[in-house]
């Protein structure tokens, strides 16, 4: 019975306990599953709420943008895809306005969005490529050890037709470079984004096959 009381107490305190931004982000991230549409949308919505609550913290907007980017990338409807990317860019604008104007993660994610837009709107690839390159350049300038930069470049190369300089072989060097930096990355502070390693490994394997 004592055990039960403790449990009861625990349940009640947990319910009443106010979450910190770290906990909120961590919890949402752990439930985020790009393969499951419902879970993805739940994460997108959740991150939006987090961004509204901690709206002066750039990282809250960053994660909102991250979730929307992934949701856009995994969406099949062309119009919706583009809407997700528009929303993601808006969130990154908010991140910039709240202390991340010179943050490499923001520019890396912006590059990822442009690279996705090429697939969405291939005829305007030159325009998107220009934005993609500018953002990658800026991200590298700010912190060239950011593994996500090379991971994003790898993904972009991977999905570029071989005739245009893409393909597995050309993508591999980028994933390898990303791997090297992912290994050096400390992954203990959620406020310093560290996503991507797992998928990078999958892509590495895919490229080496």
């Amino acid at each position, binding site marked *: 019975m004592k055990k039960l009381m403790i449990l009861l107490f625990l349940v009640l305190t947990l319910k009443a306990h106010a979450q910190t931004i770290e906990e909120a982000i961590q919890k949402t991230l752990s439930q985020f599953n790009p393969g499951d549409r419902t879970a*993805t949308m739940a994460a997108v*919505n959740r991150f*939006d709420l987090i961004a509204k609550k901690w709206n002066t913290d750039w990282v809250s907007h960053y994660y909102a943008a991250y979730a929307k980017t992934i949701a856009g990338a995994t969406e099949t409807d062309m119009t919706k895809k583009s809407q997700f990317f528009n929303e993601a860019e808006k969130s990154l604008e908010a991140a910039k306005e709240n202390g991340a104007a010179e943050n490499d993660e923001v520019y890396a994610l912006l590059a990822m969005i442009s690279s996705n837009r090429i697939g969405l709107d291939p005829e*305007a690839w*030159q325009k998107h490529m220009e934005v993609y*390159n500018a953002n990658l350049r800026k991200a590298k300038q700010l912190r060239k050890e950011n593994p996500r930069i090379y991971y994003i470049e790898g993904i972009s190369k991977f999905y570029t037709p071989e*005739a*245009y*300089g893409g393909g597995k072989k050309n993508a591999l060097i980028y994933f390898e*470079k990303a791997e090297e930096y992912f290994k050096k990355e400390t992954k203990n502070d959620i406020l310093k984004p560290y996503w991507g390693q797992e998928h990078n490994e999958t892509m590495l394997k895919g490229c080496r096959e």
Partner: protein
Amino acid sequence: MRLLISFLLFIIASLDCVSQPTITGKITDQQGNSLPGASIYILNTLDGVSANSEGTYTLVTFEKGNQVVVVSSIGYESINRSIILENKIYTLNLKLKEAVGELDEVVISAGTIEATNDRKVAVLRPLDIVTTAGAAGDIIGAIQTLPGTTRVGEQTGLFVRGGDASEANVIIDGMVVQNFFTSDVPGIAQRSRFSPFQFKGTSFSSGGYSVRYGQALSSVLELSTNDLPAKSNVNVGLNMSGLFGSVAKVFGKNSLEVTGSYINVAPFYNLASTNFDFYKAPEGVSGSMRWVHKNGDKSLFKLLVSHGGFSSGTEIPDINNASQRFRFGIKNSNTYSNASYLQNINSKLYSFSAVSFGRNVDDINFGATPSKTEEWRLQGRTELGFEINNNLQLLSGAEWQRFSVKRNFDTFNSGFDEKQTSIYTELEWKPSRKFGVKSGLRGEHSDLLNQFAISPRISAAYKVGKQSQVSIASGVFYQNPNNRYLLANKLASFQRAIHYIANYQWITDKQTFRVEGYYKSYDRLVRELNEPFNPNAFRFISGDIDNSGNGFAQGIDVFWRDRKLVENLDYWVSYSWVDTQRLFENFTTRATPTFISDHNLNVIAKYFVEPLKVNIAATYTFATGRPYYNPNSAEFLNDRVPHFENISLNISYVTTIRKVFAVFYAGVDNVTNRKNIFGYRYSTDGVQRFPIEPALYRSVFVGMSSSLSAFNRDEL
């Protein structure tokens, strides 16, 4: 014990539920389709849920009292609902309205077809221009497949809606280009001097164009050059008419581009059977330099300087004696420069300024007669754009041009020097996303003619459906008399055209349907007085002229493009019907001019064979026979040549060899080797007639181009 714990937990959980406010319901769109993934939350809290795959949700919250529930979904307008929360279950079913996006905003577009990457949905993309079969990579070749145009195989220039080549102006970055085409060789249509790859946007107006431009009775083709290249790169090209190379280097916000080319058309002409004897195939060298500075969205500076020359010798039918041929030799030198600066002063105000200078010299041997034409044009433009409020935009500017043409034909010297000053202002009013009006005034003054004229113009568009809109446009357009009169020192007043255009357009990202009807009235056209008709375009003008000419043009243009029917297939069909007559120049009565085909049809198809990385393109052109002058006919310009037909094929293969991106291409023009005839010329006594033939029948063109983008392993 375990069971007990579980049971108790269950009790706690369910107690929890009833002791908390609960909102449940379904989120749908206006049509009642569920919206999975919609977000339902209490404003200013972390309490929120997502709608499941059926669009239903259950939101349990700790919040009580006066609260706001927000429902949002990407692509829809959010709804806020005030609610007083108690420990109860509430049902809240909501319908969301679709948010209006870029697609839904009206675009004032009557008379204009744009090829651009800047808009999400466009009739054409710049790349479409380059890849049109039969255009041989020439912008004009591709524009001539659009509705409203007629391809006139033996004459240089753009013929639009009943207008002759002199009635169309080509503009690059806001500046008129005086010698857009390679210098004329009588009887052979010339290509443009500019590579299509240097333009990011093409806007072709077949009527009713903006007050920014004037001095063109029918049409304006507006080209905008590229901004900063995405990356430093090196390009090399080789084809049957020459070599081409360019280097572009990007330094942060700046880029420098240098190009050079060597043209020698001999290999191309040798392989084709030519109707004319090219005793000296066109050969030339040219080079250009371009500087671009782009400071984000704040400012954009572009400078282009190019210089080139060529020489050629062609044996052409004698202009004065139809049965004879004579040698036409030309040596050309051309310089063109353009500098423009766009500055966004703040989010509401921008300024644009540009200057350009062009000079062209043709040294011609007209049979045994030496002739020299020297022309230049200097111009400047400055304008301000101001956003008065969300739906009102004002544009005002001024333009100044000075140009001069001098011609020595043997011992005859002629020439003129003209200064034109124009001011313009235009107001764009979009009271809603569905409706917009643009109206403007342009005042232009000619120093040579000592005349001032005001042209009012207006266009409006109304969105009738999600993807469709109707638009109308009207305007007054003035133009100087043709250079041939000014050169002979025969002055008259401005000629005038008034356009009325109505357009319906339906456009999605994969399909476009566009139909446009127009009526154009011409008056004050230049007429030669007391002259018998003479079909010779190089005739000597000796008599007086006045502005007593007039005419009209009416027609319907239809355009259909589809990229949905078959994957990787893109095709478009353009059809134009034109009915036009005029009394001008040395016409004796009102008649349809010789450059008109009543019905024009173009079918363009492009298919990408994905596994082979091969692009196949085909263009079919059909045009009904044009009028020709028969001195023996009782009625003036009443005879018609047989119809024109042409099939072109193009095949290109894209590949990467190491780090080099390469395109190999081959094309055949006039696949069936059809003997098209453009008209007839008669001997002076009118007994013998000679067909006017194209320079080439079937011809083959092969080439490649490759590009290497800067790749630096350290950059990795």
